[in-house]
């Protein structure tokens, strides 16, 4: 029997201003009916290009230069729109990352589902609408009838992805390609979306290609996993073999760099443990937050009655799902926004009394610094790396001498592992990891004692994340910095923080030492969060 989809030695190249880029350099795989194939790899490895090539959705600049793509035995390598349009949606469908952007923002979702139904079936508007309702119920959207007329911006990210799934399966295709379907969603939402997806796949015995950067997700839901690197498939194996005994050097590195339930920061990069400096937990608190509350407009409080303390040199993790208030708390600590009620004491000063708009010229500004999530977005595009690092030195420390600035900036850059020759580059000339280093260098340049990190590695590939986490950990141990570490990735928080606070809807659910909290969660909510993390079992002694 012919497999549902076969991809044979496919090459794809893109014509760009800087010449021809070979995005795929000979990729082969096959997917059968009822089978789930995972494609994992880091950004630029060609995972998404593979999916788009199969769907024949490559943009104008990209084309398949050689190889064969067969769908149900039929060669579709060079098929035109007239062949593909009836297939897309009806026989092969695709769902995307960032579901909210993938839906038409000004069209009710019921109409969007009906559009797909009517594109492939000769049915009336009314029939399409009632089928759309059934589909919304099938993807377990509550109050489906009212939701038919909702717009994407009125739904949560998880709901949008369910709508997207409903659209993709509306015409019962036999192949579904899911390109990072749960990236950016909370772990619990990820779990429900993935379970819904696999349930539908099994029930209709469809073929699924799951593209993801998350090895744990692939391990949990796929029967076979293909690892891609720089346009090549380097390895393909069932998950237990792949993670148990990875063959290819790249796979080994990828597996090692992925945070798991037991990994430590130094394991990720395969370096010996840095000299461990015990945080001075018994010393006087650096930060005291009590009864902190923040209300935006008329809605329910984003942060309600949160209190905690942070010792000098301690690292505290704030975890929770989106909307739990973790970013709001971090912004109030940094005095970027004002609290509604409550106090924040930093050493001897009650910084909650200083209005957020005045804090930038307060002497304490230099001691509390921030590292942002998206290093690319948070760097001024017109500033070179040197300018970005020198800016706080100039403004907060009042250094005006150019040589002195240069010396200090390269000093800080060196500590952050940023090579000297990169200092004159602009953000767009730097890689993601290098930008993250600039962001960190900028934050530690004025010599802070408290660093607030808001999802500092969320936008990075796992191998880069590993290096950056290692860097942050080393900096903390060297300089005795205290961290407030905000993240949705529980494994990262466990590795980076001595203590963890779990937040839900603006309230603290659980608080305790990271080791204990992750080993034996005391509340159901924390337990559910932990259970939702997909993970893979790794055989010890890879290195």
């Amino acid at each position, binding site marked *: 029997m012919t497999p549902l989809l076969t991809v044979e030695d496919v090459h794809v190249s893109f014509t760009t201003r800087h010449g021809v880029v070979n995005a795929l350099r000979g990729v082969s795989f096959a997917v059968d009916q009822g089978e789930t194939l995972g494609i994992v790899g880091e950004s630029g490895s060609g995972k998404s290009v593979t999916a788009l090539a199969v769907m024949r*959705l490559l*943009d104008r600049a990209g084309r398949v230069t050689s190889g064969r793509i067969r769908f149900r035995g039929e060669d579709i390598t060079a098929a035109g729109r007239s062949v593909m*349009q009836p297939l897309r949606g*009806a026989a092969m469908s695709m769902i995307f990352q960032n579901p909210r952007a993938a839906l*038409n923002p*000004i069209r009710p979702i019921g109409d969007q589902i009906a*559009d797909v139904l009517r594109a492939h079936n000769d049915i009336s508007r009314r029939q399409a609408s009632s089928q759309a309702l059934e589909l919304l119920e099938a993807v377990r959207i509550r109050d489906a009838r009212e939701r038919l007329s909702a717009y994407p911006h009125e739904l949560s990210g998880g709901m949008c992805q369910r709508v997207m799934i409903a*659209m993709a399966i509306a015409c019962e295709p036999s192949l579904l390609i899911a390109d990072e379907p749960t990236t950016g969603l909370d772990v619990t939402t990820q779990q429900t979306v993935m379970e819904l997806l696999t349930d539908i796949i099994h029930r209709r015995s469809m073929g699924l290609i799951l593209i993801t950067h998350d090895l744990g997700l692939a391990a949990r839901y796929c029967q076979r996993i293909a690892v891609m690197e720089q346009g090549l498939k380097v390895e393909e194996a069932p998950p237990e073999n792949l993670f148990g005994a990875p063959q290819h050097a790249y796979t080994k590195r990828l597996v090692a760099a992925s945070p798991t339930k037991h990994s430590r920061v130094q394991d990720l990069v395969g370096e010996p443990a840095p000299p461990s400096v015990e945080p001075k937990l018994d010393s006087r608190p650096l930060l005291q937050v009590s009864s902190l509350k923040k209300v935006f407009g008329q809605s329910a409080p984003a942060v309600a009655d949160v209190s905690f303390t942070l010792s000098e040199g301690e690292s505290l993790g704030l975890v929770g799902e989106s909307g739990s208030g973790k970013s709001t708390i971090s912004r109030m600590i940094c005095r970027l926004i004002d609290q509604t009620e409550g106090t924040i004491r930093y050493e001897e000063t009650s910084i909650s009394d200083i209005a957020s708009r005045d804090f930038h010229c307060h002497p304490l500004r230099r001691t509390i610094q921030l590292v942002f999530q998206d290093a690319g977005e948070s760097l001024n595009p017109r500033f070179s790396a040197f300018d970005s690092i020198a800016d706080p030195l100039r403004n907060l420390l009042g250094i005006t001498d150019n040589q002195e600035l240069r010396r200090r900036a390269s000093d800080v850059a060196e500590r952050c592992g940023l090579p000297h020759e990169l200092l004159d580059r602009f953000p767009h000339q730097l890689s993601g990891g290098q930008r993250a280093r600039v962001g960190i260098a900028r934050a530690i340049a004025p010599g802070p004692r408290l660093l607030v990190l808001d999802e500092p590695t969320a936008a990075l590939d796992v191998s880069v994340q590993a290096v950056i986490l290692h860097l942050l950990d080393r900096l903390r141990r060297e300089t005795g910095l205290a961290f407030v570490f905000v993240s949705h990735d529980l494994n990262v928080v466990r590795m980076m923080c001595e203590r963890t606070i779990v937040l839900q809807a603006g309230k603290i659910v659980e608080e305790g030492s990271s080791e204990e909290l992750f080993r034996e969660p005391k509340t159901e909510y924390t337990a559910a969060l932990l259970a939702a993390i997909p993970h893979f079992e790794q055989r010890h002694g890879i290195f």
Partner: protein
Amino acid sequence: MVGVAPLARRAGRRLLSSLPALFGVVIFTFLLMRVLPGDPAVFFASGPNAGQAEIEEIRRQMGLDKPIPEQLVRYLWDIGHGKLGRSMGTGQPVVTDLANRLPASLELTFTALLLALSLALPLGIIAALRPNSAVDHAVRLLCTLGVCVPTFVSGLLFIYAFYYLLGIAPDPTGRIDIFASQPPNVTGFLLIDSALAGDWEAWWAAASQLILPACTMALFVLAPLARMTRASMLAVMTSDFIRTGDALGLSRRRVVLVYGLRNALLPVITIMGIVFSTMLGANVLVEKVFSWPGVASYALDALLASDYAPVQGFVLLMAGIFVLVNLTVDILYGLADPRISIE
């Protein structure tokens, strides 16, 4: 859906908040007219030999002998009572003059905008779907021509070609052939009035007078509309939801028109408002070339004669229309984009 009550409340608030700006416009125009060189009294005196006494008499009639603050207060008082003064040129109250001439300008502007849109949207879409193709370059050339040829040149060219050479257009004088029967005045818009009266001969006469000036103006504003449509379409066609539409097998037509164009139209609506206001005020050259009895040519004549009242009235009218157009654009935008909240 957006309810009617909050929409009305929002519109009311917007109108109220525009009052200070309108007030500023009134004061500014008043002062500007006073510092412009030229004495209206001299201009409107019986002749070049008019004596000093006659000029003084006219000054007194016009209230120009009073100190400027007092003139301003009187002027504001009059505006508050709905009076904009009397035009020295026509001898009519400015309100009457404007009310007679505004429909002519509006009819011309609306027709031109409709023409421009019906041309700009398809051109913009085609150019965006095939960027850097021959079609795209042709559209760009047409837009450039439209912008850089002044309206009085294109207007005269149209007259030369269609009236003088081909003889298919009527003589370019006014809104309707003087020998044709005027339809009863209901809305002031000749096309609508004659259609209401069922007088299709008059409708045709009015339409054939209208088409050349409307084309002239449409050509001038084609560029901003078509370029905006193209840019906006280009951006929208690369967004994720277009890819979704393609990935789920929607027809090209549906992807382009329903998913692409409707989203791309949002910024075009904003531009449309600006274009409309510009056309209404800046079409003085077109009105002059085609002897169109509109408000802009009326204001220009008054300005040349240092006739204060009509110019001030015209500026106030334009400011008011600008406020209304912006409000309409806002409301349209709110209806077209469900993401815009009511507040």
